[in-house]
């Protein structure tokens, strides 16, 4: 249909015209004025407490204690079950969060502005690897790190960013792709590149050399530091694509550990959900598939913009890390995703694939026509609260989301 083809070209052109810039780090209460006390934003589509998976409940207990809304983790569990907290998806507040995706009032959020369209998107800071809240970790070490991010790291990061004109992200990501990142399970290049941009500003704005050294070491020691930046960037790129009449392009994909949800441009902000699937991957020593939690997190926003599993060809090292086969197979994932997308991104190219642009603009019609579900690179959380990450793998978006979306989309364009 001509209406759909034109609408999808408009969606693609808005994605390609985006100009995301990391401009600030500010408290969530300031970034999101509608975020109030006892409100907890989580990853994925809406989910009730009783239907949440173990790590999600564990993270909620931890963040409630962190915010002072509960005296202990046990108290937090009881209060959550009794309805003391309001749960909402990050996506309903211009935000995203990895894995459990906790966002509450006092946390520092990175701000990415899409200067082409004037919208902003937010994501919390990456906590590092090991036992962390995004994987359901909630002990004192996790909460102490969050307090340092809130009280020291976040304010210093924000001050450094405000001292300049922000960090443009489009070219930084383009360089990262040429250096082996796919921006979901491999962010080592972009984390280094952003540290190079940030370090002079941090040095100029810092008054405490020891604290500065701690901040630089924290970024430098975290290969996934850039993931949360890429996620805020993804949200900032996709939000202006929402609500284009007749467009069958996916504007969001996310998971809450229970359900997988997608949104489609032509059907506005309606969620289409289906039970989430188990990642297939490799496990850290001492853990197996039996320990794994189903797929979780808003991080699939990076696949929505053509990175992550869609850019696997740029990151052959990731194919091995997530158990997706040989390095030489990496390009096949990208070629396959080209069959379900509206176009390619000429600014985000993959040298090893003769500078092929990353597949961009997932079309629900193509997903169903080919039977090829979007490929997602993901971390794997332990299924019990409080343990953390146990592996990394690949997961497919459930076809049922796309089937429901197609039926609603067809109605939206008068097709029965």
């Amino acid at each position, binding site marked *: *249909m001509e209406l*759909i*083809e034109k609408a999808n070209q408009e969606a693609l052109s808005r994605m390609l015209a985006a100009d995301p810039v990391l401009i600030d780090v500010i408290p969530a209460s300031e970034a999101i004025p509608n975020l109030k006390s006892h409100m907890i934003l989580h990853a994925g589509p809406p989910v009730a407490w009783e239907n949440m998976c173990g790590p999600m409940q564990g993270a909620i207990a931890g963040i409630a204690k962190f915010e002072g809304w509960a005296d202990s983790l046990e108290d937090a569990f009881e209060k959550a079950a009794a309805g003391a907290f309001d749960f909402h998806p990050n996506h309903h507040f211009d935000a995203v969060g990895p894995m459990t995706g906790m966002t509450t009032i006092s946390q520092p959020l990175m701000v990415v502005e899409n200067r082409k369209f004037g919208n902003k998107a937010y994501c919390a800071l990456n906590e590092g690897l090991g036992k962390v809240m995004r994987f359901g970790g909630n002990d004192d070490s996790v909460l102490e790190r969050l307090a340092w991010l809130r009280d020291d790291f976040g304010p210093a990061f924000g001050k450094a960013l405000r001292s300049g004109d922000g960090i443009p992200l489009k070219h930084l990501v383009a360089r990262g792709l040429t250096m082996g990142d796919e921006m979901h399970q491999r962010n080592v290049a972009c984390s280094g590149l952003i540290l190079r941009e940030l370090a002079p500003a941090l040095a100029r704005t810092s008054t405490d050399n020891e604290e500065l050294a701690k901040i630089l070491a924290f970024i430098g020691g975290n290969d996934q530091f850039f993931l949360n930046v890429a996620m805020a960037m993804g949200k900032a790129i996709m939000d202006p694509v929402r609500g284009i009449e007749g467009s*069958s392009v996916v504007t969001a994909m996310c998971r809450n550990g229970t359900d997988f949800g997608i949104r489609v441009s032509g059907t506005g902000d309606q969620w289409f959900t289906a039970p989430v699937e188990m990642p297939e991957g490799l496990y850290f020593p001492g853990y197996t598939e039996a320990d794994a939690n189903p797929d979780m997190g808003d991080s699939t926003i990076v696949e929505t913009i053509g990175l992550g599993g869609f850019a696997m060809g740029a990151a052959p090292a990731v194919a091995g890390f997530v158990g997706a086969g040989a390095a030489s197979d990496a390009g096949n994932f990208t070629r396959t995703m080209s069959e379900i997308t509206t176009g390619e991104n000429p600014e985000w190219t993959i040298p090893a694939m003769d500078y092929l642009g990353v597949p961009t603009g997932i*079309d629900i*019609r*193509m997903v*169903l*026509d*080919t*039977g090829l579900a979007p490929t997602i690179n993901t971390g794997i959380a332990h299924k019990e609260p409080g343990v953390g990450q146990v592996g990394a793998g690949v997961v497919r978006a459930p*076809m049922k989301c796309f*089937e429901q979306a*197609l*039926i609603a*989309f*067809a109605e939206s*364009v008068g*097709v029965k």
Partner: protein
Amino acid sequence: MDNNKTADLISKPLNVVNIGLEGFANELKQQDVSTIHVDWSPPAGGDPKIADLLSKLGT
């Protein structure tokens, strides 16, 4: 295909294009038959309602 052409086909080395179920291609490859597999499945996994909508919406 008439009988003569069928006879021609099986009297020469086969070059097979297999569409759909990969198991058929694997069996032929194990017998050293030149085979190319095409990874294909019916639109919408064979769901007639979704397939009908796809045909009307175009791709």
